[in-house]
C-alpha cells in the first residue's frame, strides 16, 4: 500500500494544487483522502484504479469544505483527473517544494509529504525528530509558499540548472539519511534509499536528458545494488574492503554504470555524475585489491574543481593513500584538522592511516576520538570492536 500511496499521492497533490492554487488546502484534502484509504482499503482491498478512487474521495471532500466559498466553487468544476499521456504535474510540484526560498529541512519534509505521500509520523521517524516539529515545519513552509508568492511552475530554462540543483540536493539528503540508518533500527522504519531512488527515477522520467539527474540516479542505484553486503548476519557494519562482493547485484551495477556513461556522453559534467563515476569504480572492481585508485583520485580532483569541501578532500586523501602511500595521505589529512576536528570520519580515517604507518598508540587515540563523535549504533559497534 505504501508503494501505491507513493505513486498516487503525488499525482493527486499536484492536481489539487494546480486546481485550487492553495498548498494548505490541497494538503488538507489529500490528507483526508489518504486517511479514508487507510481505513477502507485493508478491508475492501486496494481498488483497481487507486488514483481514480482517491481523486473521487478528494473531490467529494473538497466539495464539502468549499461549498461556502464562491471563489473555489468554480475551481471545483474544473477539477479533472488528468488522462494518461497528459503532462505529469508532479514536476511542478517537485520544483515548488524545493524552491530555494524554503529552508532545506522544510524542502525535504514538503517533498516527502506532498510528492511521496509520507505521513507526518513517517517523516518524523525517518529523520529522528518529533511529529510536532515536522508538522510545524510543513505549516511554515506552506505559509511561506502562499505569503511570499512562490509560484507553482517548472522554472524557466535559464534558471533550470540552478533550481534543479536544489531538487537534487533534497533527493540526495533523503538518500543519505536512509543510507546512514543502521540496520539495528526498528524494522518499521521505512527504507528512505528506496524512496530516494523512486524520486530520482521519477525526476528522470519527468525531466529526461538531464545528465545530473541521471548521475544522481546512477549514484543511488550503485549504492543500493551493494546494500546486501553492508551488514553481516549479526547486523554489524562491514567495511567496503571486507564486503562479500558476490552479494552485490552486478546486473544492477552494470545498468547503473551504463547510465553514468550515457550521462557522460551528453558532455555536461557535474558533481553528481562525477560522484557516480567514483562509486562506479568501486562497484566495478572485482576486489578491493583490484580497485582502480588512480582513476578514483583523478575523479576526486575533477570533483574538487567543481565543489570545494573539506569532506571531499578527506575522501580524496583516502584514495591518495592507495596511490601515493600513507605518508602523503597523512599529510593531506592533518591539513584538514581545522575544518574537520568535529567530524568522526576525519578521526577514523586518520586512525586507519596511522595504523598503516605502525603508529598504533596514536591510531588508538584517534579511534577513541572518532567513537566519542559517533552516534550511529552500527558505526559505534565497528569502532568499539576495533578498539577491542
Amino acid at each position, binding site marked *: 500500500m505504501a508503494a501505491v500511496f507513493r505513486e498516487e499521492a503525488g499525482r493527486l497533490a499536484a492536481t489539487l494544487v494546480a486546481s485550487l492554487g492553495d498548498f494548505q488546502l490541497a494538503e488538507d484534502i489529500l490528507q483526508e483522502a489518504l486517511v479514508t484509504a487507510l481505513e477502507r482499503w485493508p478491508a475492501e482491498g486496494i481498488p483497481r484504479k487507486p488514483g481514480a478512487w482517491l481523486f473521487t474521495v478528494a473531490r467529494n471532500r473538497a466539495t464539502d469544505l468549499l461549498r461556502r466559498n464562491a471563489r473555489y466553487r468554480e475551481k471545483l468544476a474544473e477539477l479533472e483527473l488528468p488522462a494518461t499521456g497528459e503532462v505529469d504535474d508532479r514536476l511542478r510540484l517537485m520544483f515548488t517544494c524545493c524552491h530555494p526560498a524554503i529552508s532545506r529541512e522544510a524542502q525535504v519534509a514538503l517533498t516527502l509529504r506532498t510528492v511521496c505521500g509520507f505521513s507526518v509520523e513517517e517523516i518524523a521517524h525517518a529523520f529522528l525528530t518529533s511529529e510536532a516539529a515536522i508538522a510545524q515545519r510543513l505549516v511554515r513552509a506552506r505559509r511561506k509558499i*502562499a505569503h511570499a*508568492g512562490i*509560484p507553482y511552475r517548472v*522554472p524557466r530554462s535559464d534558471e533550470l540548472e540552478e533550481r534543479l540543483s536544489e531538487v537534487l540536493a533534497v533527493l540526495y539528503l533523503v538518500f543519505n539519511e536512509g543510507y546512514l540508518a543502521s540496520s539495528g533500527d526498528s524494522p518499521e522504519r521505512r527504507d528512505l534509499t528506496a524512496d530516494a531512488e523512486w524520486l530520482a527515477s521519477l525526476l528522470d522520467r519527468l525531466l529526461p536528458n538531464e545528465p545530473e539527474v541521471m548521475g544522481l540516479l546512477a549514484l543511488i542505484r550503485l549504492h543500493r545494488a551493494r546494500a546486501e553486503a553492508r551488514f553481516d548476519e549479526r547486523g554489524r557494519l562491514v567495511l567496503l574492503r571486507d564486503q562479500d562482493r558476490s552479494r552485490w547485484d552486478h546486473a544492477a551495477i552494470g545498468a547503473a554504470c551504463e547510465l553514468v556513461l550515457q550521462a557522460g556522453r551528453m558532455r555536461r559534467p557535474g558533481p553528481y555524475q562525477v560522484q557516480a563515476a567514483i562509486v562506479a569504480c568501486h562497484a566495478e572492481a572485482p576486489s578491493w585489491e583490484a580497485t582502480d585508485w588512480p582513476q578514483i583520485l583523478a575523479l576526486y580532483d575533477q570533483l574538487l574543481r567543481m565543489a570545494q569541501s573539506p569532506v571531499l578532500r578527506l575522501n580524496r586523501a583516502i584514495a591518495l593513500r592507495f596511490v601515493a602511500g600513507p605518508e602523503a595521505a597523512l599529510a593531506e589529512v592533518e591539513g584538514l584538522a581545522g575544518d574537520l576536528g568535529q567530524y568522526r570520519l576525519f578521526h577514523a580515517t586518520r586512525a586507519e592511516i596511522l595504523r598503516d604507518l605502525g603508529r598504533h598508540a596514536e591510531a588508538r587515540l584517534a579511534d577513541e576520538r572518532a567513537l566519542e563523535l559517533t552516534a550511529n549504533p552500527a558505526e559505534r559497534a565497528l569502532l568499539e570492536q576495533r578498539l577491542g
Partner: protein
Amino acid sequence: MKYMLMFCHEPDAGPRFEDLPADEQRRMLQAILNWRNEFKSKFVDPGMRLGESSTATTVRRRGDQYLVTDGPFVEGAEVVGGYSIVEVADLDEAIRIAKAFPGCPTTEIRPILESEQPEAFSATGVLSETR
C-alpha cells in the same frame, strides 16, 4: 504581488558605497539607473538610497514610555542601504530583479501584505486576496 526589496550591506561583501572612490560611485549610480530603466514597468516605487546608519534615529515605545535614541534599531555591521518596491507576478520575478541589482550584493525580499482588513482572511485561514 508587491514586494519590498531591501538592499543590505554585509561586512563580508566588500566596501560600502560611501567608502568607494568617487569614480566608482559614479559608475555604480549609472548602473543602478540602467537597472531602474530595465525594470521600469515593475516598479511601484523605484526607491532610493537611504542615509547611512549613523544618520538613523530610533523611536521605541514601551507601555506609555518613549525612548528616542541615536542609531538603527538593530546594532551591527549589517545595514539596510536602500529600498525599492516592485509589483510582479511572483517571487521568482522579484528574485530576478534583485539578482540584477548592481549595488549592494545582499537583498532581502519581503512581500507587502495586500490587505490589513480583518475580513480579508477567509474562514479556512487563507488570504482571499492573494494576487
